[in-house]
């Protein structure tokens, strides 16, 4: 097991800053997700940690040892590639035992070790097939078995679930999380799917354009997003954003637009006082933090989408659109005028220019 720390890690390809000044601490046994949209540098970060790329700047440390110049084969890393990269000419058994063969583990131990991981991943009955005869989910588990059999100090997973169908992905999500907790191997997991990151990871590092936007527990990223980007990226349906102005009237801070106006709670007002450099801010409200049927703000129902577990209502307040999560079987007609209220302690405010949260 191993502690990993990235210190001002940068990897440039010519002019492209694939990873830029990334600093991140990963504890022993921790399960960290590298999350971000396509092209944000997730794979590059992973390949740099694995040693395939040499950092342009900065350091990768494994338990305090700088490993920038250590070749991948000496890092004792288990890695699952997005394509799985199972050797097509080898049976499942040979794929799984390949790392043992390379490590010159005596042949008589291969059987027990392979069976052990195969049992764990429920692929014991596939040992004699070749990868071409396996489903995506089975291939993924074989790839995982191959990375685990050598008892790595660090597990790197590059979008391991993205080739699976939606249902299997949900099952494997839970399986993978449980497996990681049982084995306790420090794990870095790359995904562009925020639900995957939220459900599985102890902590999420959210990247955009090669830069770290925020790192924290799923709850921290959800409840207190550091930037507008984080707020918009995490959560489905996404957070509602409105450009608003701050107004101070008789010592109280108000949020105003041409359609509505409300006072900030004391706690939030204090933080905003400290942080705000301009009156122009962006208000963010999550769809589940809006209640229909009470409050002073008035809107019109644009469309109603029943989701089963709850109902997604789109409202119009003047020209502004809002998505609201209402209770299941919530009845309201299109065009109907309704009252709504925001949960005042849960709203987010961001500086319009810097896009940074005013509540941190």
């Amino acid at each position, binding site marked *: 097991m191993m502690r990993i720390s990235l210190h001002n890690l940068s990897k440039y390809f010519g002019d492209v800053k694939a990873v830029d000044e990334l600093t991140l601490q990963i504890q022993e046994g921790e399960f960290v997700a590298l999350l971000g949209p396509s092209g944000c540098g997730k794979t590059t970060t992973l390949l740099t940690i*694995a040693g395939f790329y040499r950092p342009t700047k900065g350091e990768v440390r494994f338990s305090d040892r700088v490993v920038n110049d250590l070749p991948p*084969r*000496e890092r004792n890393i288990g890695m699952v*590639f997005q*394509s799985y*990269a199972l*050797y097509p000419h080898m049976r499942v058994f040979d794929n799984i035992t390949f790392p043992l063969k*390379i490590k010159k583990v005596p042949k008589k131990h291969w059987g027990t070790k392979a069976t052990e991981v195969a049992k764990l991943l429920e692929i014991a009955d596939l040992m004699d097939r070749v990868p071409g005869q396996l489903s995506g989910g089975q291939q993924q588990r074989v790839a995982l078995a*191959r990375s685990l059999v050598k008892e790595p100090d660090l597990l790197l997973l590059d979008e391991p679930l993205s080739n699976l169908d939606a249902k299997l992905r949900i099952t494997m999500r839970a399986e993978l999380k449980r497996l990681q907790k049982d084995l306790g191997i420090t794990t870095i997991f790359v995904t562009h799917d925020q639900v995957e990151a939220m459900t599985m990871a102890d902590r999420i590092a959210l990247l955009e354009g090669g830069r770290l936007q925020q790192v924290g527990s799923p709850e921290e990223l959800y409840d207190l997003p550091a930037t507008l980007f984080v707020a918009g990226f995490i959560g489905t349906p996404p957070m509602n954003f409105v450009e608003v102005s701050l107004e101070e009237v008789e010592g109280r801070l108000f949020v105003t637009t041409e359609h509505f106006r409300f006072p900030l709670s004391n706690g939030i007002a204090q933080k905003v006082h400290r942080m705000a450099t301009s009156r122009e801010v962006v208000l963010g409200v999550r769809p589940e933090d809006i209640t229909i049927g009470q409050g002073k703000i008035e809107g019109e129902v644009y469309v109603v989408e029943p989701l089963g577990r709850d109902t997604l209502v789109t409202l119009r307040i003047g020209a502004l659109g809002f998505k609201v999560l209402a209770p299941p079987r919530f009845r309201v007609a299109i065009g109907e005028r309704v009252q709504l209220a925001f949960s005042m302690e849960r709203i987010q405010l961001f500086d319009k220019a810097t896009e940074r949260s005013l509540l941190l």
Partner: protein
Amino acid sequence: MRRTITSKVVPLASFMGPSLSLILLFYFVPVVLTLLIAFTDMGRTLQWHFIGLYNFARLFGVGIRDPFILKIITNTLIYVAGALPVTILGGLLLSILSMRMHRGAGLFFRTVFFIPRVIPPVVWGFLWAWSFEGTRYGLFNAIRGAWGLPVVYWLIRYPMLIVILANAFLGISLAMLVFSSAIASIPRDFTRAAEVDGASEWQIARYVIVPALKWPILTMTAWHLMSFINSYVYIMLITGGGPYYATEVWGLYGYHVAFSQYRYGYGSSVMTVLVVVNMLLLVALVKAFGMRRMLGRGKIEV
């Protein structure tokens, strides 16, 4: 129905016609002529009599026998058995080395080894002949001379080795090109997976790259097998088949019989045997691997 046939035949004929008639003129006509002449005693005067299977009887040692044939067959076998593995293994080694090297170095390396493909055969032949020249003017003897060493009669002491290397070198340059492009199409993740699992360069080559090159290796082996069975040009240029039949292979023997001894009839029968061997080999290869798979696009195992 009629119309569709014509509408297909006309463009087909106009596209393929010219090349088909060229193939007919320069391939089938000579083969048929060779076949016919093989049954005659045509000599320097070009007068001929039909002599039935006499030439072939001589070739196969029925009644009358050609004293050189056994030597020629042995030479041909040794030559092919030597040049083929050198070509395939050399091509593999060089392509793997050049593809796993630094990109610029790899490119340079591949270009250098491709040079023999683009220079004229005569130049290539004389380059080897000159390098292994038995006097002190030959390249290697000049080098030895600079160190005060006596000359070696390379072409007399190691004639077979030298013609094998000269031809294999050419084979290597083609094999390397084919293998390199196949290696380039192996997904990076395969070699990376092996690398994180601790594999050395040698282990990556052995367990990941070479198995993925199964088809290119088979195709190149078949290709060079056929090409080496028919070789004679470079051997003629370097040793002329000598010293005293030491490097005289089947194709070269046919050439010598026909064009040095002017026994066109007998020479044609020697060549006819080669044509038949080629056809049998081709049929065997196609049977074994399937035409489609052999000639299909350069596929690798993924």
